């Protein structure tokens, strides 16, 4: 996959050798780089090259994570953030997929929703946060509603296009073989559209996490975002970096889980996925 010069035929053996070496560097290099960077970071703060206020030592940050874990605060924060993200994501996924399928099928709905959805997709939905605070208050309802609203356009459009681009011949043959509309939906359209729908969900998920964090920063009510902003207010930089580490890990694990779920559920489909 990577760019390289065509190996000269005369040195095939050494080309294979250098290829193996190259693969090794490609695989292990990232770990080495991360380790070196963390070591430099640690050394710089131990030797006081940077103010610990601006950049606390890695060890300090890790110790802080351990303390927060032991006191249970970490679990509460991660739990709250995950709950809001997943609740919003789940509602957006269910409503978005249903709406998308309906729009693909019913011409009247398509007439109404096409302009609304294509106008809604590119606007920065997060700008409506104060409106949501006004309508739904400061608690979980308004946070989750904000997440749903931010993610749903993406999911509707992905589902709609997925259902729209299912090959007409498949639907026609199913229908001529006497399949009911219900069977066509569940046994033809949905399976054929599933990979694209899932890609839409994979694009929407990081957005849900972003919006949850911002709502927590603005409205409080525990969660990683709330804690991070409070730590910034009290200029508690180890706590701040701990938050960044944690949310990075949460994001990484969630994205990996979605990819795993994709392979699990859509394993029969040709490889592809979020990168396409």
């Amino acid at each position, binding site marked *: 996959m990577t760019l390289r010069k065509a190996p000269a035929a005369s040195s095939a053996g050494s080309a294979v050798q250098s290829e193996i070496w190259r693969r090794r560097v490609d695989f292990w290099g990232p770990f080495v780089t991360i380790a070196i960077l963390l070591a430099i970071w640690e050394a710089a703060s131990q030797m006081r090259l940077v103010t610990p206020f*601006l950049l606390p030592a890695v060890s300090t940050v890790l110790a802080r994570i351990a303390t927060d874990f032991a006191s249970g605060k970490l679990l509460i924060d991660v739990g709250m953030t995950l709950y809001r993200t997943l609740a919003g994501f789940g509602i957006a996924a269910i409503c978005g997929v249903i709406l998308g399928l309906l729009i693909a099928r019913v011409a009247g709905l398509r007439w109404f929703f096409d302009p609304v959805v294509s106008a809604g997709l590119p606007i*920065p939905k997060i700008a409506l*946060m104060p409106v949501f605070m006004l309508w739904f208050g400061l608690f979980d309802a308004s946070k989750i509603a904000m997440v749903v609203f931010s993610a749903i356009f993406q999911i509707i459009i992905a589902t709609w296009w997925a259902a729209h681009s299912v090959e007409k011949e498949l639907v026609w043959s199913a229908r001529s073989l006497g399949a009911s509309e219900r069977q066509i939906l569940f046994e033809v359209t949905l399976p054929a559209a599933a990979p694209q729908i899932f890609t839409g969900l994979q694009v929407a998920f990081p957005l849900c*996490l972003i919006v949850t*964090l*911002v709502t927590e*920063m*603005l409205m409080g009510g525990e969660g990683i975002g709330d804690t991070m902003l409070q730590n910034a207010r009290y200029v508690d930089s180890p706590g701040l970096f701990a938050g960044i580490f944690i949310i990075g890990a949460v994001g990484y694990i969630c994205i990996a889980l979605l990819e795993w779920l994709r392979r699990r559920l859509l394993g029969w489909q040709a490889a592809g996925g979020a990168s396409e």
Partner: protein
Amino acid sequence: MSAAASLFSRAAPLLILAALWEFVARAGIVSPGALPALSSVLAVFAGEFSRELFYHTWLSLVRGAIAMAFAIPFGIAAGILIAWYLPVRVVLNPLLQCLYPMPKVALIPLTIIWLGIGNLSKISLIFVGALVPIVMSAYQGARSIEQTLLWTARSLGARESEVLREVLLPAALPEILNGVRTALALAFILIVAGEFVIANNGVGNLINLWGQAGQYPAMFAGVLLISAAGFAVDRAFVALSSRMLAGRQS
């Protein structure tokens, strides 16, 4: 259907929603505190708050533009270098992989303690957020280029710099444009989110202040204006991309 009729047919649902908004507010079905009538929101653009609103929106958009002006060239260069040179890949790719799954808004508190609450912190936040999708797309675009194109160019005697400029960049362009579009959407989110959380000016800050002061028509006008700006920028970029890609086959 004529062009005008089809345009009207497309605009009609939005007009219906607008009319519904106006009606619901005027008829007193919802309190004006929760939803001011559309007409009174639009009146803000001609009223006493309009100068302030346009000025602060301008400030926000300039921040976004400066950040994008850095993020686009840096992102493209970094993405192509990561695909092209193994040493660069080994150093930069892990950083990219760490940054990629992290919601960039998590960096808002960090930019505050490092860079304060002014322009510098906002611009760097948008820069970092916009950089990641651009680097990823340039990397993927450069990686997926057909080997034969490169071999052909080289065997015809092209220098490396020429191969980069004349073969690789054009081949990766569609992917890169997609990445920049994603980055633009993210930039708008970060402009607004950053200013909501903490700022001393900008449209996000203004929306916040007006919300706290109970100036709801003005607050809605701010929301409407930045949403319209996000929409307009996206449309303009799509038009620009299709011009840049015009005449291509795929």
